[in-house]
């Protein structure tokens, strides 16, 4: 037991460093995927059949294949197949590759949620705005937008909480995130070797972080519960 108390500060600070990388990947993914998802959803709702068909095919491929494979393809393909290692060999390159894979993957999921939100607003809301002489812009911002947001908050919270845990997939390209940090103590790190508990301990970080997000989303849902649609 005294071993544990000696090891804890070393492990704790290493896990914090890993968690910071996890957090960074989480934040960058959201910042990229939330707007990119909007563009993808416009593509899949487009009246131009070719554009909507192409967009929906991409969404199908991305949603239909494992994120882990997408990560590996994006990271290894340029170097191993094209012999042009654009990502370099450092942690920054791994982060960039991981961020791009995550943003594309999550943008596709978000786009489907947005599409559902847009299509769930009854046509009558738009028509009521029209007969009251409002412009399309006024109808979108003053009438339908908040109704869409209310509809997409629950599925978005679901995806975002999934993202917290999905960041661990970037371990596969050796991004030095939380899981990588925990696992490193099994193989010897900072003079400690053969420790399994740090890996399990990473679970507490994920749990605590998703608890925080859950509270945040519950608060948002409650804020929007004053009206029904």
């Amino acid at each position, binding site marked *: 037991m005294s071993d544990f108390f000696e090891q804890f500060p070393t492990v704790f600070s290493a896990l914090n460093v890993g968690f910071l990388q996890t957090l960074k990947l989480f934040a960058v993914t959201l910042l990229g995927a939330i707007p990119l998802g909007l563009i993808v959803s416009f593509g899949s709702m487009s009246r131009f059949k070719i554009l909507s068909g192409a967009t929906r095919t991409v969404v199908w491929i991305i949603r239909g294949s494992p994120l882990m494979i997408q990560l590996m393809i994006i990271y290894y393909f340029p170097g191993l197949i094209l012999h042009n290692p654009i990502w370099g060999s450092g942690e920054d390159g791994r982060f960039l590759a991981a961020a791009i894979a995550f943003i594309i993957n999550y943008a596709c999921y978000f786009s489907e949620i947005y599409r559902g939100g847009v299509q769930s607003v*009854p046509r*009558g*809301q738009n*028509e*009521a705005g*029209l*007969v*009251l*002489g*409002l*412009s399309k812009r*006024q109808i979108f911002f*003053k*009438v339908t937008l*908040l*109704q869409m947001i*209310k509809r997409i908050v629950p599925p978005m919270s679901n995806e975002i909480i999934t993202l917290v845990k999905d960041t661990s997939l970037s371990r596969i390209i050796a991004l030095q995130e939380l899981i990588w940090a925990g696992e490193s103590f099994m193989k010897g790190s900072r003079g400690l070797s053969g420790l399994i508990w740090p890996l399990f301990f990473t679970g507490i970080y994920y749990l605590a972080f998703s608890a925080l997000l859950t509270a945040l989303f519950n608060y948002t849902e409650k804020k929007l519960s*004053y*009206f*029904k*649609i």
Partner: protein
Amino acid sequence: MAILEVCGLKKSFGKTAVLKGINFTLEKGEVLVILGSSGGGKTTLLRCLNFLEIPEEGVIKVGGKVIFDAGNSAVLSESEIRKNRLNFGLVFQSFNLFPQYNVLKNVTLAPSLLKKGTDQEITQNAKQLLSKVGLSNKEESYPCELSGGQQQRVAIARALALNPAILCFDEPTSALDPELTGEVLKVIKSLKNSDMTMIIVTHEIEFAKNIADKIIFVDNGVILEEGDATVIDAPKNERLKNFLASFS
């Protein structure tokens, strides 16, 4: 002079002709009731007057001024349509209130976005309209807290807030329980007493007989019979006879 003149209105969806040449006129302060079985074109006619559908042929004049002419694309721009549709108000079968706004804001939203007066004037006017439809005590309520009848009365106040020359009702009581129908019909009747020009699509035959200055029977895209409220008691057209018989 007639406040509304509709000439040769035609509208089809794909290959289905829904309106095959509709002509009628309406005087200021008159109430026109449109009868007809479902799918006959009544709702499409109202939707054309409100530019929710654009007719392929025909002319619509309000107060002698052409506001729609299928042959003249100058009146078909989006901004022209937005301006001209304000001659008409429309009350929907399914109310279509804005769920995220309270009753007062539902009524004031469009007038304030369209800058129809100062905030104070708009609010004052909205409060008066809400008291007219008997909902002064519900100003702060949200649509989900109201009964269907109350929601429809808010929808009427909302349409009146823009002061339309002609108020249209698309089966205003069809989505309501029978015991809530009365309160909505009462409000419509009170509007007639204040000389509102109205076009009402309804299946409430007794109400139609009571309120109509003019009745048209639309079937299969054409007007088969036209007259004052007495056509309900003495229909000439066979189709109208059968239609009315189905209610008794």
